């Protein structure tokens, strides 16, 4: 039996030998290398519309993220084209759905870059998806701007990847500071999604900032995105009777959590991050979410003219109030067009250099400066859910970048000093 098995298996042993065949033929180095070569240096067509790629979750459980972003991108492109385009050429956007899955995101970006030959890519919202797409963009040497991925790791992929939003380290600080200073809540429970990098990262940043500023984490409870029953975790939280509960998850789960928390008699306000930002939140949670706060990239109630113009054109075009993701999609596209105008050519290297040297770009979500780590330095706003709508509460600036006279409800980051003062969280977020 063993010998017969061996004889049958013998040809199989030949496979590794077969693998060595090319080696015998001389040096393997002369063989054409696998598709993963260096940065693509193909000449970009000089006439016709400039093609920009976008990938996002247009379907799937976080579909409003992708749709809002796409609306913002579309609006920006229309405005840029109406104003004569970039370098005398019109812009065109090609969008692929990634269904909120990392593998799909990687495939979509590969297709955009190698098949459609886009000059730059915009996407994604969720950090884990930006990581997947970003590595492809870096590999092929095509710049990618993430509108709203806040996990610090995303831009560490390489020099092709940048973003127009703040990072979680800052967001954690913002929520912690707001809770301590404005809510006078220093005993805070945390309920986070252990399956989402965004949620886990934000939780850690928040806990660190809270403790550093003198607060206390009452308890840490975890769930997994898509869970339906949170009663065990919420009961444990209720037993510690915290002043507030921080839920750094996505709106899809937050709705359920809020309803079940109120059912269990928990009256403490819920706090959250930009993952709450969706018109669906109020629909899902109803009255349960009333009075809760979350940090966001902008508020449509901001009185700055740039914001108000954006809100009214967006409403006229899409019939809805733009959420933060729409504003960031809009800003990312406008910033990209601005960089294209400044770049000597549209090759990946030149364009990335132009994007990375952006300073004081006037965006809807604040004045954007891309820092050496390719993250955007800017302020965050805190909004409160009232009557099913997120209402503007306050603006919180990066540490050491507070404007001299904090003006209520006006011009966040407008007066932020541009000198070398690092964003508050930079040191903490760097390993």
């Amino acid at each position, binding site marked *: 039996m063993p010998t017969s098995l061996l004889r*049958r298996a013998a040809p*199989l042993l030949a496979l590794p030998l077969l693998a060595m*065949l090319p080696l015998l033929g001389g040096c393997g*180095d002369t063989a054409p290398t696998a598709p993963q070569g260096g940065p693509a240096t193909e000449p970009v067509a000089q006439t016709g519309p400039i093609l920009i790629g976008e990938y996002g979750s247009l379907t799937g459980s976080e579909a409003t993220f992708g749709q809002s972003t796409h609306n913002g991108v579309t609006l920006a492109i229309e405005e840029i084209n109406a104003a004569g385009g970039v370098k005398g050429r019109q812009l065109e956007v090609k969008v692929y759905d990634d269904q909120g899955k990392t593998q799909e995101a990687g495939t979509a970006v*590969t297709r955009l870059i190698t098949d459609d030959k886009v000059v730059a890519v915009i996407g994604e919202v969720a950090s884990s998806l930006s990581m997947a797409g970003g590595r492809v963009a870096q590999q092929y040497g095509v710049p990618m701007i993430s509108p709203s991925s806040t996990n610090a790791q995303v831009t560490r992929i390489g020099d092709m990847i940048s973003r127009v939003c703040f990072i979680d380290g800052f967001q954690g600080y913002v929520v912690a500071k707001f809770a301590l200073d404005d809510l006078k809540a220093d005993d805070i429970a945390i309920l986070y999604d252990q399956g989402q990098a965004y949620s886990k990262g934000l939780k850690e940043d928040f806990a660190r900032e809270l403790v550093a500023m003198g607060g206390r984490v009452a308890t840490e409870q975890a769930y997994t995105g898509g869970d339906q029953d949170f009663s065990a975790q919420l009961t444990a939280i209720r037993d510690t009777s915290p002043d507030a509960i921080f839920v750094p998850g996505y709106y899809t789960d937050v709705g359920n959590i809020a309803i079940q928390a109120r059912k269990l008699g928990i009256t403490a306000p819920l706090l959250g991050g930009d993952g709450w930002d969706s018109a669906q939140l109020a629909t899902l949670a109803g009255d349960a979410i009333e009075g809760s706060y979350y940090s966001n990239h902008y508020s449509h109630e901001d009185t700055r003219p740039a914001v108000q113009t954006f809100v009214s054109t967006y409403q006229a075009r899409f019939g809805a109030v733009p959420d933060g993701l729409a504003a960031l999609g809009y800003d990312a596209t406008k910033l990209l067009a601005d960089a294209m105008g400044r770049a000597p050519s549209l090759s990946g290297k030149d364009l990335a250099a132009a994007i990375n040297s952006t300073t004081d770009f006037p965006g809807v979500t604040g004045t954007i400066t891309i820092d050496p780590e390719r993250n955007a330095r800017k302020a965050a706003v805190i909004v409160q859910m009232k009557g099913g709508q997120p209402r503007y509460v306050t603006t919180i600036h990066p540490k050491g970048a507070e404007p001299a006279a904090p003006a209520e409800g006006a011009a966040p980051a407008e007066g932020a000093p541009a000198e070398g003062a690092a964003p508050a969280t930079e040191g903490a977020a760097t390993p």
Partner: protein
Amino acid sequence: MASASLQERARALTPPALPTLVRAWLPVLVLGGLTLLLHFVVGPAVGPYYSKLLMDIGINVILAVSLNIVNGFTGQFSIGHAGFMAVGGYTAGMVTYYGGLSLWGSSLPQGGFLGPGELLFALSCLLGGLAAAGLGYIVGLPSLRLRGDYLALVTLGFGEIVRVLVQQTDDVLFSAEELAAVPVWTLPTKVGGALGFTGLPFYTSLFWVYLFVSLTLLVAFRLKASSHGRAYLSVREDEIAAEAMGIPTTRIKVRAFVLAAAFAGIAGALFAHEVGTTLNPRELGFQKSFEAVIMVVLGGMGSISGAGLAAVVITLLPEALRSVADYRMVVYALALVVMMLVRPQGLLGLHELWDLPLVRRLLRRGGGAR
């Protein structure tokens, strides 16, 4: 005189050496040739996007064909294949990433085709397969004494356990200095958690994918045609009768399970090092396991070419349906329900592609040797 005739008969029955040798090696040469053709001719000709699709197809073929050894050959119902894939992927990832960091001080790919980096990658694939096989043995030994639904539950639970454990891990280390500062045994906890194991070098190419696809197909076909493989099939057909015939059914089932796990581990290793994939716990969850089961059921339980064919279809379907992606899961479900009603045995049932009357006629007309 009896012995003389016995010797003569034995000599007469011994197949001639040369044709046997040719027949034994022909598939190896053909598959190897196809692999090289894909890598050096087809890949550069179709460009990176279609190359990536071809790689995705190859990885799914490995998954489907290997799962078919358990679900198709022995008739057990395992739905934890993605768990083994994850084990293989993370093991291989640690080897290439941390191995690369400590050997060359960089996690970037080293050397060209079959350069030192790729050899490390080949080693990591085998280690990934071994790790998955080892775990398959540990999981399989107690649970394969169970039958039907219970095995499904155990394997489902296993897949979830792997996923949740990986979620709890810490961030990936970025540099050789950081790597030197921590003890080696803590490395399995530094694989990125929910964000995924990022920064893995992109070693996976058409060559490596189809090398392992060839290996999987050869093993599966040789197994199915062997007496050892017939023992697998007998377990599926009637466990009690097989036991009565002296077949150690539990041992056979464990063997099938370990073999399938090993290939799933290799598939995971290839997946981990592919451009545009991220090795993260969310990706290798229940859905991925179920996708593999769908491929096997769709292709026909026990049909190797059926599983391969279904893997191709199911990989390409979402790409073709990207515009109506919302309805993709509906299409899946519908296809399965229709399948259960119309062809409960799957596309090809127990048969292989060339057993179909149409294909057979074509082969004969074309002067095919089968």
